[in-house]
């Protein structure tokens, strides 16, 4: 016994260093099967996605248009977010990435800069009109290429407990200044309640708020990247939330914890700055308060403005490893522009489509079950989606996002200056770009 145990521990200690190395081989091994020949004839494609219910949507393709064109797509369910990006990059390194991958918009530059996703402009360029300009631009990275077809978007909105707002005589804030006043007013009337929380565990929320304020975190000039994380707009957003946290006007504990669920479910927190997908989250986090919430546009930085940020959203990309790029692009276009496909996506996967026409048809003519009290939910959502500010992603969003969690987590805990945390985020992001050999403009 001691001997085997010792061996196991020994192996485990070395496994640490091996895990990274193994990643490459192991992932390559479970990558896509050979995707057939380039010639026409039956083609089979592999698709990595985390969207629930995607297999049912893909069935529609395999039985319909796919059958006609002899293109069969197989779904391989994946983990979402950053882990999938790493997995795709590792598989790509071995030349074994699947034909199609789901990619969050902010991950596209990373994938493009690793030469993992292919330019499919000639195959899907026509789909451009189906999407809002700001959405489409995220898949082109401002170039003539098109690296993905937009699938879903996450325009940001303000969610609040309608009943409790009435009870405490609070007005739905139209500006961020009013938002802060509302938070203070609530604290005065019910000291044990919070308007919302500032959560340092989701970088996407802060990125979306900065985007609304007009921040452009990554831009290019010539052959150089410019990082604007520490720009005036982001500083304004960071300072705003930092002051609220320091003052104690809002809570500072992370989202998506059992505590947070309970706070929403019991009305300890009575509002949430979120995105169009919030009904799904609220359904599981706060089941007892169904029908008591309402949605409003995000507060603005000035009365005259009408703009929102985005939090979440993803696209379908074709990899450079695919041997059937044209077929894969055809599927990607069908999946995200065809009426039937989008209907099924809404029904089976509960996504909010990027395609403009789909936002007001089919599943989106009635409000989500959780918001049955707000019949015009999706009409309003479509209106808000239109006001989405352009976004600017770069090749190392993952680094900025990671640094956000640690720097803002620490600042929140210590109730210290959020400006310093933002500066850390900027510095780390620039340092990483330079380390990789990117040219960075001052």
């Amino acid at each position: 016994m001691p001997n085997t145990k010792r061996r196991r521990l020994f192996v485990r200690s070395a496994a640490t260093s091996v895990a990274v190395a193994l990643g490459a081989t192991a992932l390559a091994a479970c990558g896509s099967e050979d995707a057939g020949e380039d010639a026409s004839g039956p083609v089979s494609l592999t698709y990595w996605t985390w969207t629930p219910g995607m297999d049912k949507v893909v069935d529609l393709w395999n039985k319909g248009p796919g059958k006609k064109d002899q293109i069969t797509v197989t779904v391989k369910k994946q983990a979402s977010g950053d882990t999938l990006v790493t997995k795709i990059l590792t598989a790509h390194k071995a030349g074994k990435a699947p034909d199609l991958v789901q990619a969050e918009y902010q991950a596209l530059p990373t994938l493009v800069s690793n030469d993992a996703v292919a330019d499919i402009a000639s195959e899907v360029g026509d789909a451009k009109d189906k999407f809002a300009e700001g959405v489409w631009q995220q898949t082109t990275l401002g170039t003539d290429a098109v690296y993905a077809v937009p699938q879903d978007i996450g325009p940001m909105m303000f969610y609040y407990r309608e009943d409790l707002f009435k009870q405490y005589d609070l007005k739905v804030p139209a500006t961020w200044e009013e938002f802060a006043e509302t938070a203070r007013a609530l604290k005065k009337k019910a000291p044990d309640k919070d308007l919302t929380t500032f959560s340092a565990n989701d970088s996407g929320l802060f990125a979306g708020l900065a985007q609304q304020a007009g921040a452009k975190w990554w831009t290019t000039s010539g052959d150089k990247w410019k990082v604007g994380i520490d720009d005036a707009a982001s500083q304004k957003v960071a300072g705003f939330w930092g002051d609220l946290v320091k003052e104690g006007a809002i809570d500072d504990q992370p989202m998506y914890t059992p505590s947070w669920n309970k706070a929403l479910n019991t009305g300890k927190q009575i509002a949430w700055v979120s995105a169009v997908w919030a009904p799904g989250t609220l359904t599981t986090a706060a089941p007892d308060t169904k029908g008591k919430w309402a949605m409003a546009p995000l507060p603005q930085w000035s009365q005259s403005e009408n703009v929102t940020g985005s939090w979440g959203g993803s696209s379908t990309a074709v990899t450079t490893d695919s041997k059937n790029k044209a077929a894969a692009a055809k599927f990607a276009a069908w999946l995200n522009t065809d009426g039937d496909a989008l209907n099924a996506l809404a029904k089976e996967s509960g996504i909010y489509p990027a395609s403009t026409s789909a936002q007001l048809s089919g599943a989106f003519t009635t409000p989500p079950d959780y918001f049955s009290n707000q019949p015009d939910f999706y009409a309003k959502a479509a209106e808000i989606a239109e006001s989405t500010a352009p976004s600017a992603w770069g090749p190392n969003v993952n680094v900025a996002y990671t640094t956000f969690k640690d720097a803002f987590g620490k600042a929140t805990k210590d109730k210290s200056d959020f400006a310093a945390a933002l500066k850390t985020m900027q510095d780390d992001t620039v340092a990483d770009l330079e380390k990789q050999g990117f040219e960075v403009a001052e």
Partner: protein
Amino acid sequence: MKGAPYAHPSPTTTLKRARSAPYFFLLPATILFALFFALPIGYAVWLSLHKVKVSGLGLGAGARKEVWAGLENYTDALTDSELVDGALRVLGYGCIVVPVMLGLALLFALMLDSDKVRLAPFTRLAIFLPYAIPGVVAALLWGFLYLPDVSPFYYVLEKLGMPQPDLLDGGPLYLALSNIAVWGGTGFNMIVIYTSLQAIPAEVYEAARLDGATPLQIALRIKIPMVAPSLVLTFFFSIIATLQVFSEPTTLKPLTNSVSTTWSPLMKVYQDAFGKGDIYAAAAQATIIALATLLLSFGFLRAANRRNKRDVSQGGVR
């Protein structure tokens, strides 16, 4: 020795065969070792000596190359304050976990070994059981218990009007994390010590009792010295487990602002590899951690062995 009744092949072939036999038997283990141990480690070391080099905007084909980095990743890792801070945090954590866990394990083992204990098999199983629970599950369970808003403990404290400490911040965080490890690990170490207690011959106790030793004296003067080798062994395991702490802080991380994504050195490796996508730096850090683990654990083993030998020789003289 008389010749066997069956026919022997010529003595030289027997000798040859006998000489090659060990290698033949070693072959499967050697192949497995090479494939799943030496080779991946070699690849990790190879990765740690490389880095990525991007040209221009880094968009499009061929913009990214893997180039030789020399020891750059290693110097970066060793000068990275976050890695050093992580090591210090783990040191603090280890200073709580190892003594408490081994102390409890020894105490429980001695108690189970005494004649007066009742329900020994049940108690033994009850103390051992947490070890069978996966670390992540244990950390999740404890995480729930540490969150004031959902924890039954806090509910009771509140009803009793007692102070409710924030277990997920500052110093208490170390206690909270250590508690998970102690809860999970004590049982295993107890079994190791208990097994070697059972192996002590009864005559020794008898002799001690005849000499007038009390049960306490038997425990302190006979039992503990005689299980010293198992204590060394459990200490060795515990050092390694502590250096590798990963799942507990990773599981608690989403619940609090106090645990950073790079709280322990292994978390930093994971973060760099899978969060930041820099497998080269991660490989270098992993190599450093593996070396440090080897150095510490074997250093300890050697020191313990040397002491043992000295004790034995002194005993001989006396």
